């Protein structure tokens, strides 16, 4: 259980980190929280000549947000706020999962991230693990990719050529495979807060607390003043080679009155959007069945909250 030898680099800026990745190419790997990479190195499932530790890159930590009209409002002293558009929340890639979980801006403006965070490993893991690490690792059973996909988050990526945005829909390509090239560095994630009456719910099924989920679901719903659903986003994890959107469920919900939805029945449609893989933990059929039942339950939870919110007006 000892990793192969590597050379250690600890850059202090994004540009230095990108420079190292460009210099060493495929022989280099960025190290974020290390909660997946270090075990993979220790078990020698992978090895790299150069490890580029991002833990000293201060500009990659923290949460900031803008609201239209009142300009940048930096919550944790993050740089790079220049890239934020009106009404966006920007979360530095090195922000610890524990910070995402407790950050009040995240809880208020991107509630799904707040709700999903406690499901990641255990608190000792979240003290070290980062949001960018989870997203860049792209484990199909992890929480943040499903939330990012459902909400249409943006990956802000730095490379020697400059900084560019990759939408979530283009980011996740396959298991452990993203649109990031060897000299790309995921710098931050950006999300647009939902406006108007809306509700959010998240849950997953796992054999033991903290284990990777057999299936999980993230649901965001929005309604107009008349109580008709005008926005639905459903992300699923553990039921395909990447996080997946339950597009059938989203389409079925569109235009329905909030109090008329049969959540269990609509949830069953999610089975069409999955391509689960069977393994020692659960068969593909079980994941499909449990996953679609779970989507129905999480949807029911979101509907109850949305009804409350419409009542409170």
């Amino acid at each position, binding site marked *: *259980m*000892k*990793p*192969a*030898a*590597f*050379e*250690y680099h*600890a850059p202090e800026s994004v540009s230095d980190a990108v420079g190292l990745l460009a210099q060493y190419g495929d022989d280099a790997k960025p190290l974020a929280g*290390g*909660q997946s990479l*270090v*075990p993979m*190195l*220790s*078990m020698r499932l992978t090895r790299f000549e150069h*490890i580029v*530790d991002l*833990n000293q890159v201060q500009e990659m930590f923290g949460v900031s947000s803008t609201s239209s009209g009142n300009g940048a409002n930096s919550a944790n002293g993050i740089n790079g706020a220049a890239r934020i558009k009106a009404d966006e929340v920007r979360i530095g890639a090195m922000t610890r999962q*524990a910070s995402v979980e407790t950050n009040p801006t995240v809880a208020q403006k991107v509630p799904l991230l707040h709700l999903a965070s406690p499901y990641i*490993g*255990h*608190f*000792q*893991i979240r*003290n*070290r693990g980062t949001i960018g690490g989870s997203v860049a690792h792209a484990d199909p059973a992890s929480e943040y990719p499903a939330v990012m996909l459902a909400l249409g988050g943006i990956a802000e990526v730095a490379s020697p050529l400059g900084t560019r945005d990759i939408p979530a829909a283009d980011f996740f390509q396959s298991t452990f495979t993203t649109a990031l090239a060897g000299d790309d560095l995921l710098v931050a994630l950006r999300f647009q807060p939902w406006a108007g009456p809306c509700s959010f719910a998240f849950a997953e099924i796992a054999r*033991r*607390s*903290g284990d990777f989920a057999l299936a999980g679901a993230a649901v965001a719903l929005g309604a107009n003043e008349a109580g008709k659903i005008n926005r639905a986003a459903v992300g699923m994890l553990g039921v395909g080679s990447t996080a997946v959107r339950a597009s059938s469920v989203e389409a079925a919900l569109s235009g329905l009155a909030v109090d008329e939805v049969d959540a269990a029945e609509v949830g069953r449609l999610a089975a069409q959007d999955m391509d689960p893989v069977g393994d020692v933990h659960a068969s593909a059929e079980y994941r499909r069945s449990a996953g679609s039942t779970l989507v129905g339950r999480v949807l029911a939870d979101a509907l109850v909250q949305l009804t409350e919110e419409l009542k409170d007006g």
Partner: protein
Amino acid sequence: MAEAVAISVKVNGRLQQGLVEPRLTLADFLREKALCTGVHLGCEHGVCGTCTILLDGQAVRSCLMFAVQANQAEVTTVEGLALNEDTLHPVQQAFSDCHGLQCGFCTPGFVISVAAFLEANPDPTDEEIRHGISGNLCRCTGYQGIVAATRQAAATMGGKSR
């Protein structure tokens, strides 16, 4: 061959310096260089929790980071939790009182995790306790004694701060 890196880590209040290979985990550094053998290694991939330490006050798995990453940081292992060698930390006392251990292999990780958990949740419910200890595995006790110990530690530590 990767070059060794000079690091300096404050371990249980004492400065520990050394030349380390970058691939040396913090857990191995603490055990072999700082001689804090209370840091146990069970799974070495972040599941069992017995290597849990406090890094700048936060509970983390010492098998899931490299010693070079702890340069300039402050580490507390189970050896450094109590005020001095003659006393036990309230969490240690509670594990002793409530049969929170049998073979003892998992105990250092539990003690550190519970101390950190109670710091953040001074008055937990039983359900919160069970959730709080879910990141550590024990194969002897069936957890009942550990839950009872956590409850007792919460009471004694709360009593102290009031």
